[in-house]
């Protein structure tokens, strides 16, 4: 199975922009490392999001000017950030109380695999000899109200990431609400993967072909 060159779908920025449209004003959001960080660049007109970084800051702002960096003002990806007006610092137990206690509205994460039951695998390949490292991923998916996955539809080698059941070690069971890929927006429902929207010019059959489990087609009249 390999990605067809003829079908382009959304690029990384378009994926992030598409996801951002589905976030209500005033949401408290934790952005995972990588593509999820791009979401902050595409806040829709008239909305304000507040970003939580689990290492102890609510109200995270953009990267600082180069000479304004503080080595002790960083995000979960250990990159320099700033604090917006209205920000607050707190310790790790309080930070994960926000996460575990269901106070955050949305967690946006990358993924290695997502099953049709909403299981997520994104922390380990399970290969012998690999250095295990989990960070806050298991806490986020267990605690945050909604979990959106933002990821390429397939791996770099063209393997499907949306599968019947995960073969990689799980981050959480039945935790994913929606998946935003380069090809489509897909909701996890009791009946499995439900296509909500296709990227422009991407046929449903193509997405199904790139998916390792049954995919329900999008509703007849798109809600857009």
């Amino acid at each position, binding site marked *: 199975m390999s990605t067809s060159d003829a079908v382009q779908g959304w690029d990384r920025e378009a994926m992030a922009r598409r996801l951002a449209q589905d976030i209500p*004003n*005033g949401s*408290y959001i934790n952005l995972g490392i990588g593509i999820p960080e791009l979401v902050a660049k595409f806040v829709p007109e008239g909305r*304000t999001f*507040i970003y*939580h970084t689990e290492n102890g*800051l*609510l*109200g995270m702002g953009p990267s600082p000017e180069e000479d304004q960096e503080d080595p002790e003002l960083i995000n979960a990806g250990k990159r320099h950030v700033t*604090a*917006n*007006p*209205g*920000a*607050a*610092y*707190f310790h790790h*137990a*309080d930070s*994960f*109380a*926000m*996460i*575990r*206690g*269901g*106070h*955050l509205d949305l967690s946006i994460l990358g993924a290695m695999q997502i099953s049709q039951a909403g299981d997520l695998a994104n922390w380990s390949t399970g290969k012998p000899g690999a250095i295990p490292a989990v960070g806050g991923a298991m806490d986020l998916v*267990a*605690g945050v109200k909604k979990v959106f996955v933002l990821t390429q539809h397939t791996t770099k080698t063209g393997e499907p990431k949306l599968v019947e059941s995960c073969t990689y070690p799980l981050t959480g069971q039945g935790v994913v609400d929606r998946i935003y890929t380069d090809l489509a927006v897909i909701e996890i429902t009791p009946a499995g993967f439900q296509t909500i929207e296709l990227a422009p010019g991407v046929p449903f059959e193509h997405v199904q072909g790139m998916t390792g489990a049954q995919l329900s087609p999008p509703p007849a009249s798109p809600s857009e």
Partner: protein
Amino acid sequence: MINKRMPNAAKAVADIPDGASIMVGGFGEAGSPIELLHALIDQGAEDLTIISNNCGSGEVGLAALLKARRVTKVICSFPKTANSTVFPELYREGFTELELVPQGTLAERIRAGGAGVKAFYTPTAAGTPLAEGKESRDFDGRTYLLEHGLTADFALIKGVQADEHGNVTYNKTARNFAPVMAMAARTTIVQSARVSAPGGLDPEVVVTPGIFVDRVVEVPQPAHESELIAAGVSYP
């Protein structure tokens, strides 16, 4: 833009329904959100469950809410205080039920509720009458009780400086239960002597981050229980 400011206490508590569970900050009169409590009396909700360390004094604030026969259950560590006559009468009459919880267990149950910790093992009260009916377990030769996290529909708390994002600081020992109650309630309502735009509080000194707070109302000159009692006030 995010602005959690409410125009007044009445609007801030307007949607509290009959049967609601409400955490009320304060230890004695320190931190007691008198104006929110009086607005709740005016509003009329009844059959309430109150979670609070005390049951108020005199006939103002929390005691006045009880006196108005709006509270059918209290979860509390120390319901009787020097000037407390309202609760004892309602309790003896059987109108208001009491769940007595040791003070530290109460604080920790509220924090657990807010932190997504379902239950925890504590040594407090093991071997006492307050352990009756509770699951216990021995670890390393000592007995611990299983206590469950506590959440509520609303919290009413009193800050000193807040901002429109809901960040809050407190005055001295008025802090007491407020930070954990703000975490544990589905809707947290703060009255604060000052409310600024975002940026009015140093992020290093925020005690309750705004994510835990839903509504903020400015009450610039909050009443103190002892002063109202000394003035002979009986609310309403």
